Every structure is written in C-alpha cells, then in structure tokens.
C-alpha cells in the first residue's frame, strides 16, 4: 500500500478555551501531526495517533471535526481529505452521506416517499384501522362515545316533537332491522335538529331527526336510512375514522411539523383531503351494507336513493362551494346511481367489502 500523506488547514481548539489556533494538519495512516501557524503565539507541535482520533460524520460541505481524546479538536473544511484518511484510521465513512450526495439515490428517495405515502394512505392505514377496530371487544366499543349523545343533546339537538304513534311505527321498523343483528347493541333515538339527517354512534345509538321522519314518504325510505346507519355501527366506522384521522394528523405533524409555521396551512390541506377520502369510503361501505340488507328483506334500495335526493335538495344550498375532494360524503348523484342501479334481488356476487 502506498503511504498516504495529506496536508490540510484547520482551526485547533484545546478543549478548555474557545481561542482558535490556525494549524496545518499533516495526516498519515498513523495519525495526525499539527503545526501551528500563528507567528506571535507559537505552540509546540502536537501529535495524535489514530486511536486517539474520532472523525466527525460528514454532513454536506459543512465544517467537520476531528475530536481528540484529550478534549481538543480540529475543525476543517477539508472534507475530501478527511474522507480519504478516515478508513486508514479504521473509521467508516458515512453511508448516509453517500446517499445524500448522489442524485440517483435522491431520486430513488423521492420515488419511495411518494409510493409509500400514496399506498399507505390508500390501503395501509384503512386496513390497519379496520384490523384494530374490529379486534376490540364489543364491551370496549360500547364505552366509546357513551357521553357523545349527551354532549350532542346539549349542543345541537332538542327533544323530538314527532308524535308518539309515528315514533312507535318507526321504532317498529327499526326493530325489524335490528333483529338481524342481535349481537349489536342497537337503540333508536328521536331528536329535533333543524335539518333532515341521521347519525350512528359507536355504541349502537342511532339518531334520526324529526325533519328526516317528516321528509320520508314511505317507511321503506326510513328503513333504507336506518340500514345505512346500522352499517356504520356494524363496521365500526366512527372508531376507524378516529384511528385514521389521528394517524394522519400524527404523520403530518412529524413530517411537516418542523417546517416554518407558514407551511402549517399547507400541511393541513392533504390531511383534510385524506380524511374526506376516508369518510367517503365509509359512506360508500354503509351504502353497500344497506343495499344487501334491503335486498335480504325484500326492500327496494332505490327507496334510499329517493330520500337521499330529497335530503340533498333540502340541505344542498348550505353546502354549495365545497369541492367534492374535501366533502365528507360521496356526491349524491353517484350514490343514487349506485342505489338505483341494483335490483331488489341480491346479485350472485355481492360487492360488499366485508
């Protein structure tokens, strides 16, 4: 092996003071030899053997340190020279630096990030959330959102004004549906809210608003809505959404959190988009559940489409201007097309995702 002998300039610090000394470093495979350059403050030459040197990791073209075991160090910009000496002293050069300095690996990194982020958001996260949500025992899920209805009562609901007889009829229809799922703790609640709507809470409480009961022309329509809500309960949609949105929030915080606060706005857009996609996916899943459920009970899925159409006409005005990408529900047109496209009779191959 040819004896390596490199010379480069640097600043020496003795480890007890911040006074800089200009030095020339002569590096050989044995170690380094420092000669001091300042005329007025001559220092005796210093010598450090290789086992007393710790080479700092390379980071772009930043100044790098050679740390010595007595607390002293040399700072130098001679990155190439130091990279050549480090292996001779038995120290590895940084693998990460090689990745960072090569444009091909940088392009590979971009490709990897895009691929992982995309597939993670589209498949990975919903899959994991479903696995976790479905693995939790029923009693635990019951606990979730126990206080939710009480909270909603205070904030948005007022007591129902639907007549007792009508409530009994709807309740009867609901119980007819609920008998198919005796393992779910399903209960029905009537509330006044101002707009026709229905909700499903994780603990099996289904809420229908007075306005929805009023807007329905047939009991089949109400049963369609109830079947959709039972679908949310059955598939633990709220729990899955909570898991998904939390993961998205955590991810965007970790990725963009250290960027300037100006980009916080930017960081929130993809998460709003992702959350909207997850919500739309759940709505479609609940629609599919309602379709197969209604077919099983010999009810026309088109009835759900009819009431959806009336609901969107009633509350549509207020939602104008929200792009479809950021909406919590798929477009009413596409939902109606799907509901009306299926027959009353179950198809041989159900497109149900579970």
């Amino acid at each position: 092996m040819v004896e390596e002998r490199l010379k480069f300039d640097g600043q020496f610090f003795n480890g007890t003071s911040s006074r800089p000394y200009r030095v020339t470093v002569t590096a050989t495979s044995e170690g380094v030899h420092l000669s001091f350059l300042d005329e007025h403050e001559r220092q005796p030459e210093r010598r450090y053997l290789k086992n007393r040197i710790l080479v700092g990791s390379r980071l772009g073209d930043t100044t790098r340190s050679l740390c010595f075991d007595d607390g002293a160090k040399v700072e130098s910009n001679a990155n190439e020279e130091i990279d050549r000496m480090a292996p001779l002293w038995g120290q590895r050069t940084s693998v990460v630096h090689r990745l960072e300095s090569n444009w091909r690996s940088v392009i590979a990194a971009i490709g990897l990030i895009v691929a992982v982020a995309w597939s993670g958001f589209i498949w990975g996260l919903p899959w994991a959330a479903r696995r976790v949500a479905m693995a939790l025992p029923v009693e635990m899920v019951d606990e979730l959102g126990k206080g939710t209805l009480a909270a909603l009562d205070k904030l948005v609901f007022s007591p129902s004004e639907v007549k007792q007889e009508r409530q009994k009829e709807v309740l009867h229809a609901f119980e007819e549906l609920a008998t198919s799922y005796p393992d779910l703790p399903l209960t029905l609640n009537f509330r006044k809210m101002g707009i026709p709507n229905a909700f499903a809470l994780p603990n099996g409480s289904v809420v229908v608003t007075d306005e929805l009961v009023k807007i329905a022309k047939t009991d089949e329509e109400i049963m369609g809505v109830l079947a959709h809500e039972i679908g949310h309960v059955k598939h633990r949609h709220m729990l899955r959404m909570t898991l998904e949105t939390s993961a998205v929030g955590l991810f965007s915080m970790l990725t963009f959190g250290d960027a300037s606060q100006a980009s916080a706005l930017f960081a929130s857009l993809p998460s709003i988009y992702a959350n909207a996609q997850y919500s739309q996916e759940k709505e479609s899943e609940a629609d599919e559940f309602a379709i197969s459920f209604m077919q099983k009970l010999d009810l026309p899925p088109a009835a759900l489409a009819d009431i959806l159409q009336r609901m969107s006409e009633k509350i549509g005005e207020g939602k104008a201007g929200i792009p479809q990408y950021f909406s919590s529900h798929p477009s009413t047109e596409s939902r109606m097309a799907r509901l009306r496209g299926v027959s009353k009779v179950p198809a041989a191959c159900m497109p149900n995702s579970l």
Partner: protein
Amino acid sequence: MENIPPLSLGTKVEQESLIPEPRRLPVQFTGSASEYFRIWIVNVALSIVTLGIYSAWAKVRTKNYFYRHTMLERSCFEYHAVPMQILKGRIIVGAGLAAIFFAKIYSLKLYAVLLLLFVLLSPAIFALALAFNARNSSYRNVRFGFDGTVGAAYKTYLAGMAVYIVTLGLGFPYFQWRIVDYWASNHRYGNQHFHFNMTSGPFFGIYARALGIMLLPIAGFTALMVVFRPTAGQAPVLQAPVLLLLVIYPIMFLVVGYVKARQSNLVLGSISLSPAGAAPSETSTHRLAANQKVLEVIWLMVSNLVGIVLTIGLLIPWAKVRTARYRAEHLYVIANGELVAQGSAAPSGNGVLADAATDLGDIGFDLGI
C-alpha cells in the same frame, strides 16, 4: 454586506492597540437549498423505511446542518445530541401521546386530567428542553449552557399568567417578556453569561402597534362595507372566501411579520455577554445586534408559503435555508475585545426526562446564532 470590517482574530487586535475598538462581526449562513434538499429527502425516506426510528438521527443531522453552516468569525456552531438519547425521548413522548389518544377514546375525564397534567408540566418541559439544547450546542469547542431552574420556570409562568389573567389578556406582552427574559438571561457560553437588558415596556409598544395594524384596515374595510352596502335584492359584492383572501390573510402576514422582525431586533439587540462574576460593564461586554426589516420578513414568509404550496412541499428545504440565511445575515456580534470564553468541551450527562423534553419543547424561538 460590503462595509463590514474585515475579519480578524481577536488576538491580533489586542496586540496592536491598547483600547481595542468594538468589532462588528457578521454572522453568516453558508448552506444551500440544493445541498439541504438532498439531506432532507434522504432523512424523510430513511425515516419511513425504518418506521420512524431514523427520525432521531434525522433530527440531529438537520440541526447540525444548520448549526455547522452558521459561521461567526470563520468558525461554525455544532450540535452534539446523541441520536439514541433523542430516540429514547421520542419513545417516551410517543407513549405519552398514545396514552392521551386512548384516554380520549375511553373517558373524557381521564383525557382532561392528562391534558391538564401536560399543561402543568409545560414550564418544566420548557426549562429541561432549553437546558438540553444549550448543553448540546457548542462554538469553538466550548459548550453553551442553561442555568435556569425548573422552579424559576414555574415562577416565570405563574407571574406572567397572573398578570395576563388579571388584566384580561392585555398583559400578554408582559407574559411574553417574562418568558424571553427567562430564556435569554439564563444562557451561558462557557464561563461567559448572557444578560438580557430590557424592560417589558418596548414589548407593549410592539404589540400595541401590531394591534393597530390589525384594527386599522378592519375599521377601514367596515367603513367601506357600510358606504357601499348592497341595496336590497342585490348580491353582496364580496363573498366570504374572497374576503378572507383579500383582507384577513394580508393582515395576518402583516401583523406576524411586523411582530417577528421587531421582536427579534429588540430581543437580540438587548442581549449581552460578559464573563462570570463581572458586572455587565462596557469593556468586557460583547453584544448582539439584529437588523431585520419588516417588509423583508413578510416577503420571506409569503414567498416561502407560495413556493411550498405550489410544489407540494418540495421547496420546504429551500424555505428553511432562506429563513436561516436571512436570520444569520441580519445578526451581528459587537465584540469588545477578544471573543474568547473558557469552558469545557464536554458537559455533564443528560437525563432521560430532558431527552423527552427536547422534542416537546422545540418551541418557536431559539438562540438564532
């Protein structure tokens, strides 16, 4: 940058004249967006591949990139935190966040208790994080340090909070000033101590003017709306989203930019450094000075935001490098004599608590030098 005195090592000046003139030393940032982009993208990719474990190494590398490219008198700063410590800290923080997350699902009461606990702990986290950061930062082989105690942090928060509450929020600048005072006057560079020489008065001035900047256009706009109010049956000329874009955003940037630039100049310009034991006298004291311009800071923020949004995040490294360069190039050290401190190259060890705190406590302002 042209009329800055040539760099010289303190020793030379000392020998040539008995009463050395104070030297205005510029801080420089020598990093570039293309270099940092590569480091950043590899950091993100490796963090993903290792399921987040590498993020601790990425953090140290990122911090070091900015430290080691920040130059004062031809020497750079350095960050020494060991990634393993940061990883341990991240695991603790992660466990805490997971606890809060599951508490939120299970019982709102437990969730509230945990959140309250977090709020109660935040002054301690603040103090520990500052200490961790200072201890792991060095310049010319001498470490920084932070001597603020956890007790003093609580005192600062409580006093500031009390004033804030009693004055129904009007005392906010005082709260802000107390925290900056705690931060600035407890830092140390080797045996040299930082001092913060400012009363809370100027803080009130800044926030009062910021309030003026915020209120004046709103008042003007309201007046316009009243004068040109739509006649019955006509659609209003300005819709809510347009209003937000045309009025609220510019005002927001104006106010934030104004406060940022003015507060940086004021705070940094009030910091001095003198040897332990010595009174902050003229001869032995170094000072900091900053001259950020409001409009330049606003332009920096707006252009960064537009760049980041238009490139779906690819320009984040560019934005960070520009910000670091702007802050460095508008910061000076007015050195009175030699810029030499005595101190150790290796500090005492870090506690696990401090490791956890450094992540939680990565708060908006850092030393900037």
